[in-house]
């Protein structure tokens, strides 16, 4: 238990690798297939511990995905990774053939999501990975926000009878959850209750969402906050009950406003229980070099903007 309490002190890529090691020690037949980013994404740790389960294919992401597919066909549980840009948009056809066409249970990690690609710039920032992954039938999509959520996401993914895409924040991030946190694919949770509007957030945008909710409380607005780490399958029951109870939704994601969490909520709500939905996220715009903070401020991925959008949604609700 002591070890778990100290989890948020570690870099999340370290937590990723340690969780894989844990799973092998528990008897899961995991293999790690990398494309020259083991050191970047943390699995060099795994390679040292289980060299016989570690494959590095060099800078060849397409090969990485299809090799993982072959290993999955033989009963292994392959975890592959690259930056979200290269584990996502670069290899969509390879993912389609392995996952959608063939139902092979590969697990794909896309690191440095959205603004956390930072000074690597737009080529290394994935703002569209969830949109692409969501559009692939039979690919689950997870966006964990802290070390506890990540550890749970990896454990769930290993046990899940299907392919899973997980966004990986690589560095140290403050804890939102605790050692008892439980994540289930297809489930979200209410992390703060309220009744006038709902903020639905995932991953990196969880803390701004909670900040925004606190600000709104001070302004006399009672806001529910939903954590939705499982962007696909979406926790439709939780989203619809929030729509019914609160009548206004604002989504917040470290991702484009096109195709991700916000889009998933709109798709559901528009057809089942239409309420105003405002989306906070990257507008339809290329990323750029900058710290995560700078990019958030420039493109509106802030608590401030979430608050603003809640007020707009409340206005629309009144009309």
């Amino acid at each position, binding site marked *: 238990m002591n070890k778990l309490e100290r989890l948020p002190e570690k870099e999340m890529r370290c937590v990723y690798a340690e969780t894989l090691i844990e799973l092998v020690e528990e008897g899961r037949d995991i*293999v790690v297939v990398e494309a020259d980013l083991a050191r970047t994404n943390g699995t060099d740790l795994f390679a040292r511990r289980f060299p016989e389960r570690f*494959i590095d294919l060099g800078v*060849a992401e397409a*090969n990485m995905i299809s*090799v993982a*597919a072959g290993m999955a*066909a033989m*009963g*292994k549980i392959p975890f592959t990774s690259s930056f979200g840009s290269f584990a996502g948009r670069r290899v969509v056809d390879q993912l389609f053939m392995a996952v959608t066409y063939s139902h092979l249970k590969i697990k794909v990690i896309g690191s440095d999501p959205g603004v956390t690609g930072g000074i690597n710039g737009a080529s290394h920032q994935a703002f569209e990975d969830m949109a692409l992954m969501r559009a692939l039938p039979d690919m689950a999509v997870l966006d964990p926000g802290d070390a506890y959520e990540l550890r749970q996401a990896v454990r769930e993914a290993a046990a899940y009878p299907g392919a899973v895409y997980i966004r990986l924040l690589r560095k140290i991030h403050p804890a939102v959850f605790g050692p008892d946190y439980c994540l289930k694919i297809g489930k979200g949770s209410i992390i703060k209750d309220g009744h006038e509007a709902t903020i639905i957030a995932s991953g990196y945008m969880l803390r701004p969402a909670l900040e925004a909710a606190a600000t709104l409380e001070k302004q006399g607005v009672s806001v529910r906050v939903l954590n939705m780490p499982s962007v696909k399958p979406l926790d439709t029951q939780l989203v619809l009950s929030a729509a019914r109870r609160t009548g206004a939704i604002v989504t917040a994601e470290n991702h484009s406003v096109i195709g991700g969490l916000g889009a998933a909520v709109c798709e559901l709500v528009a057809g089942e229980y239409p309420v105003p939905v405002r989306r906070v996220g990257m507008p339809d715009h290329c990323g750029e070099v900058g710290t995560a903070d700078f990019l958030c401020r420039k493109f509106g991925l802030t608590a401030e903007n979430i608050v603003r959008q809640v007020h707009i949604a409340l206005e629309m609700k009144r009309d």
Partner: protein
Amino acid sequence: MTEKEIKGLGEVSRSVRELIVEMMVEAGSGHLGGSLSIVEILVVLYHKFMRLREGEPDWPERDRFVLSKGHAGPALYAVLQTKGYLSRNDLMTLNKAETILPSHCDMTRTPGVDMFGGSLGMGLSAAVGMALAAGMDKKDIRVFFIIGDGESDEGQIWEAAMAASKYRLGNLVGFLDGNKMQIDGTVDKVMPLEPLKDKWLSFGWDVREIDGHNVEEISGALKRAIECGDKPSMIIAHTVKGKGLSFSENILTSHNMKLTPGHLAQALKELRASRK
């Protein structure tokens, strides 16, 4: 190989060609050229070399086969029928609605198909993954494959080639179906590949070159390739697109063509005549 064995494999090859044409006439069209060019290779693999279990297409310890040039699915299906994994009725459902036999290999639908196909350039990578997994588990499982020459334009083929060599995958053995044609023209015209043998050698593979329609040469090459335990093996098979029939041999448009009952009658006539 004995005369009897050679004759026997020749007979099976003839049956397979008949079945391919029958299937495609029933479906109305098909990837005839690239299916006919790999018949002997498939027949020798499935009838002489692959360690399989009758009636158990999912036997976990079986040797695996990857048809990376997945559009030649019908050739594989015909051979699977000769092994009893599919029925003649199954074959007649090629490309019909809700079929278990789509044009391009689907491992979720067809008993006996070990890996997907259809998007070119990926099957070899999958074969590498399968060979790696078998090696990790210290299992005596071989992974065979066929890639196309046109398919070799895909960069991913070479990513897989490098990986197979790095990992010394002696249990990975396969063929390049060198029928010298692709869709827009001959391979030489569209994207020349020579020197092909040199390329595979420089990638660290054990390489052989054969007549891809000669069952003895196919068999000899496979035997020696299998014995080569510390390198992956590539057998460059010189083949003829559309081999065996006058209306398809060396004809570019045989890649994907419409087929009528007239074609079937012609095919049966020619295949029976070739029996002597």
